[in-house]
């Protein structure tokens, strides 16, 4: 696989290129830095009708701050982008696309990616790399770039991407088009997640090579009330309602990518009083969802850990989504960590 991308060989996409009309001087070339969080699989993944009346494949990610990707980009005038580690070719492609769309046809540079996100578990490692890389590029050039713009670039760089670039902001995201189908105008309500890899000895899932689910017509319709409940969950800031959506989506996904021990996991979820069960729809990550304000939460999480151990799951982690009120509506700044 080639690790270099010739920037000047890329056709400029529409939209962003108009910015070069401003002809803002970038001054001397300086290194840029970008960060992107991983996600912990999806609260919902399925199909939904867009405002154009067409069905789109969509998802709602659960942002996860324990895993992240950091990118340092040192631009030069070589018109060639070189990435390290060299196999992260999607990130170099993303940087080349970003440079090109910003009108910097002569620029290239060296990219260093540092990430603790395991690959193939369904944590969105490649979109996190790509998002951090695009942010690093924009940062190096003192350009502001919105999550919507990042998504448009990311989907070109890797055919399908998840909604990592929106950070904690909750969106119904069309992963194959890189567009927001519905903006819930809020962050994901606060949740505590007990996460684990349901197939710790497996080889993971090739998320891009994985064939898209062929949902039945009934399942396609069933996503409507699920999205409806997400709207109500956001307005009530309800972990319980989010958990119900998550469990339902995980149940449908069992027809397309079965989660190991799914029946056991459902039973553990009910037994310990978790609000829901959550899975990566293209991966092996799963999680039990808890209400962070539940006074019995600590005990429920401990009980769940004990029960998970009995089905062979040893390695677990706990994190919370921030749930901070309304997300910002202004444009994200340069190299901003989580896009809020």
């Amino acid at each position, binding site marked *: 696989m080639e690790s270099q991308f010739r920037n000047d060989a890329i056709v400029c996409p529409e939209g962003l290129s108009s910015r070069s009309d401003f002809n803002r001087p970038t001054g001397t070339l300086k290194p840029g830095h970008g960060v992107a969080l991983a996600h912990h699989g999806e609260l919902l993944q399925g199909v*939904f009708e867009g405002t154009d009346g067409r069905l789109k494949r969509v998802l709602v990610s659960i942002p996860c701050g324990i895993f992240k990707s950091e990118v340092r980009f040192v631009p030069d005038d070589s018109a060639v982008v070189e990435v390290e580690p060299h196999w992260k070719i999607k990130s170099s492609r993303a940087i080349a696309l970003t440079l090109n769309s910003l009108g910097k046809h002569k620029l290239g540079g060296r990219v260093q990616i540092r990430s603790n996100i395991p690959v193939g578990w369904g944590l969105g490692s490649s979109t996190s790399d790509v998002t951090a890389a695009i942010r690093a590029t924009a940062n190096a050039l003192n350009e502001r770039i919105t999550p919507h713009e990042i998504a448009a670039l990311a989907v070109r760089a890797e055919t399908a991407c998840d909604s990592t670039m929106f950070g904690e902001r909750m969106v119904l995201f069309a992963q194959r088009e890189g567009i927001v189908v519905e903006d819930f105008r809020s962050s994901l309500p606060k949740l505590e997640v007990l996460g684990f890899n349901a197939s710790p000895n497996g080889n993971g899932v090739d998320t891009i090579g994985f064939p898209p689910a062929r949902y039945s017509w009934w399942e396609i319709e069933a996503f409507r*009330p699920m999205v*409806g*409940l997400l*709207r109500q*969950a956001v307005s*009530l800031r309800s972990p319980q309602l989010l958990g*119900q959506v998550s469990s339902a989506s995980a149940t449908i996904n069992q027809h397309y990518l079965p989660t190991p021990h799914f029946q056991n996991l459902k039973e553990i979820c009910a037994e310990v009083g978790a609000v829901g069960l959550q899975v990566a729809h293209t991966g092996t990550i799963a999680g039990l969802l808890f209400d962070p304000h539940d006074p019995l939460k600590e005990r429920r999480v401990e009980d769940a850990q004990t029960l998970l151990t009995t089905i062979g799951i040893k390695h677990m982690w706990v994190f919370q989504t921030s749930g901070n009120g309304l997300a910002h509506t202004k444009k994200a700044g340069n190299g901003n960590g989580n896009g809020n």
Partner: protein
Amino acid sequence: MAMATSKITPTVVESVMLPKLIRLDHNLYGAAFFLMKLLPARFILDRARDAGLLHDGSVIIETTSGTFGLALAMLCKLRNYKLFIVSDPAIDPPLQRRLEDLGTTVEIVREPSPTGGFQQARLDRMNELRDAHPGHFWPAQYSNPHNPGAYAPFAELLTESIGKVDCLVGSVGSGGSVCGTGSYLRLLFPQLKVVGVDTHGSVIFGHPDQKRMLRGLGNSLMPANVNHSVFDEIHWVNAASGLSATRALHRQHALYMGPTSGAAYLVARWWAKRNPDAKVVVVLPDEGYRYQDTVYDDQWLQEQNLLLADLPEEPVCVKHPLEAGTEWSCIDWNRHTYEQIMGAPFQV
């Protein structure tokens, strides 16, 4: 439905197909439809169109004497399909005129079949028409899975507006609205209670077929679309109670709905009072204008001996469908099949 960006709809169907949600008590929500059958009629025609079964000018044939025919007639007019409806003398003349005004050909079967009565005679005539029109489409509301499947937008409205629903109450006629909505909601709320409302003399939940005074719910035939194991509880509401409850819905809540709505309201009101912590949704399928000279006329009610001074307070609970007398009755159906309750599969 995707969030509307415009208040202007392409046709009347999109603007009225979803119900208004009205709070009838602290834990009871009425879903008041203009014409509920627009949902299944639209979904059935959409799926047939997507499957390449319908084209401009296609012939559609159905047998019905109720509101499904009206919904089909509206859609067929708007979409330029040629609709044939086979009905019997029970169809009310204003409805027939309305169908014909929409360009529908209405055929009235005048003589009952020696075996199977008017229902059979209607099916026989429909089959003649189907033979005469090759390439036609038959919506088949009693057996087409797209009938129950049509209710996801309604379920979406409920989850978006109410959140968690604990109990769904609705009249059962074709098995579409209650089985369909219940199945979609139960994917999210596995504990959801589904309460079906039937009437005495309807075969759906195990009564022998008899003449029914309360129309619009129940059936003389067993619709394949009724999934018995969806139901936790079944009620049989008689005509006097159902019609009085229809009037109560109007007098107390100013909701001018049809008798199927009244029967469902009677049961839902009782259920909601007994379960004050549960959120209860009652399906109110159509408006009352077709019943101005009957249900909404005290003199007519009196002549039919259907005028009640007070609504019955509670049902008589029975252990077997055949134990249900003539009064409002109920049974714990417990998500069983017909055969599990009756001891044998349904016999035609």
